[in-house]
């Protein structure tokens, strides 16, 4: 399964990449929303873990763009954000995310979520 991590914070990006790769996933990284949109097209991930607060293009905006881009519009997108307010969840779901998880990441829960979409 191919996962694209969109995350601007280098440590968090690296940490998540290492843990997911250990679990046997193929992981690609984008450090902002604009790059995530490009990589959604170029590397065709099965699932995107989308941070929300990112420079240049936010995760919300990137999700909206991807949902309107032919060929990649159906990719599964899980918002992964340190915004824990209920309003953040609503905003993500409205933008077109399939699911929502908060940081700090409950890793076991996240893997369960990924597996749900892998099936």
């Amino acid at each position, binding site marked *: 399964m191919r996962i694209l991590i969109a995350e601007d914070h280098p440590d968090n990006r690296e940490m998540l990449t290492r843990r997911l790769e250990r679990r046997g996933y193929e992981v690609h990284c984008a450090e902002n929303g604009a790059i995530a949109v490009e990589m959604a097209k170029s590397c065709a991930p099965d699932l995107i873990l989308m941070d929300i607060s990112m420079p240049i293009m936010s995760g919300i905006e990137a999700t909206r763009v991807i949902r309107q881009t032919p060929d990649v519009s159906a990719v599964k997108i899980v918002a992964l954000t340190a915004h824990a307010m209920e309003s953040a969840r609503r905003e993500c779901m409205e933008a077109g995310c399939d699911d929502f998880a908060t940081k*700090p990441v409950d890793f076991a829960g996240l893997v369960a979520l990924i597996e749900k979409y892998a099936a």
Partner: protein
Amino acid sequence: MIWEVDYKTQTIAWYGDIAIYGEAFTFKQFIGNSTPIIHADDRDMMFAYFARVAEGEDCAIEHRVLHPDGTLAWAHVRARRVLGRSGGVRKFIVLSTDVTDRKQREAAFIAAMHRAEATLKAKRALFGDIAPELDEADGAAVGLAEMHERLDALMEEMNARDVVLADIMVKLKAAREAAEAASVSKSQFLASMSHELRTPLNAIIGYSEILQEEAEADGRDGDLADIQRVLTAARQLLTLINDILDLSKIEAGRMDVSAGAFDVGALIKEAAATVAPAIEKNHNTLKLDIAEDIGHAFTDAFRLNQCLLNLLSNAAKFTQGGVVAISAKRAAHADGDWLHIAVSDTGIGLSREQADKLFADFVQASFTTARRFGGTGLGLSITRRVLAMLGGEVTLESELGKGSTFTIALPAMLAQEGQIAPAQAPASNGASRTVLLIDDEESARDLAGRALARLGFAILQASSGGQGVQMARAARPDLIVLDINLPDMTGWEVMQTLAADSACAAIPVLIHSVEDNRTRARAAGACDLLLKPADRDVLAAAALRFARAPKSAQPAPRGAAENPKTKTA
């Protein structure tokens, strides 16, 4: 009526209807200023008046007439003198007119103006700088002109105040806008603060978990213990951030409660399972006592769970080698079923003084406690405030050194918005009984609800069959008024579902529908079918007849908004 006072003949001659004076008076009485018919208080004035007329003045006067039966009348008098050959006054020719009606209207008008004046003065007193002057409204004693003047002055004063008030309003509005802006920026600050704290915490927890996995794989037990400490501290920090966020959401009025139906017993067992490791860690035993009939509730399960976890983790934290017990039951109150969930422990307990301030924000029983046991003291404050939002409360019974019992009490059914309140009047034999109206038509629910609320029934409303079934399970009403044509399922299906549920099978169902199928209604087990729209009184009579007998209701507990009761043995 005209009368003529003749000084030469020393007589008074009367012409016309003398009803205004009732009876004639004599010249002697007139001269001696002792005319009985003229009100004693006005006689001097009359005397002075005739003196002026004798001087040749052309003027008029109004005086009071007191009849022997005690009735008061008013006369308008205009007199002219007739001079004799010697130049002295020979006669007075007097025209007296009955003006009682006009004077009464005038008095009423003046009284009304007095009331207006009193109102204006009371309003003026609202501003605090002038105490209201309590003038006696003495009717006719004050003239119309004076009354007008007084009111004008008051109106002018009020207008001046309006200008000041408008100015104050503008300033208040600006202040409110500033406060709102401050509140928005406070919320924004909290949201971004939470985000900024979580981001590094994500890295701390994530890398610690990586290290933990590696230490486990390599069998480095010494490192493993240290990594565990980092992880525990990081998770405590996360709990703290979440608590602060919750509390500030409550404070900003931004925490929403969302009601849904759930199995209360299952929720309690799940909460107990969550805290089981913490309870075992301090060598405590967990005891569960959940009443069999606890059934379903229709309130915010997530928030109730949060409160339970708070109480349970406190109990686990402050008890060593003891017992943590949960006991839960359902009880009928005047305003419907309530859930009572008690969490007791055999831990350190609390003194009266400590108990009193326990629910305040950010207060732990003592600073030493905080050092010994850790924690922020936010849990109980959140519990209290969340329960208040659910219409319930948390109470405490405790004894220092012996343990504590925290009891959560809340309505099984969260109060709905726009709920129809039951009549407060006594003699309403629907009191202490609940009716659930299942109807997708809002106006039909409203009409039926009002008709039944008048009898004292508590009214619950569901707009679909599914919601109706959920609410019936949670609230166990004493009667269901059921429509047949529902959007998601038919009323017949609702009845089937309820009949299959042991907690709901005994609830009487009254069908209220345009579908006139009595045979099917009886076969389905309905007590009656009322053709829609049923007359208000018919519906009320049917409800009184078929609703289950009132439960032996306990009095409703005190308002949830009040401070929690604390009791120390």
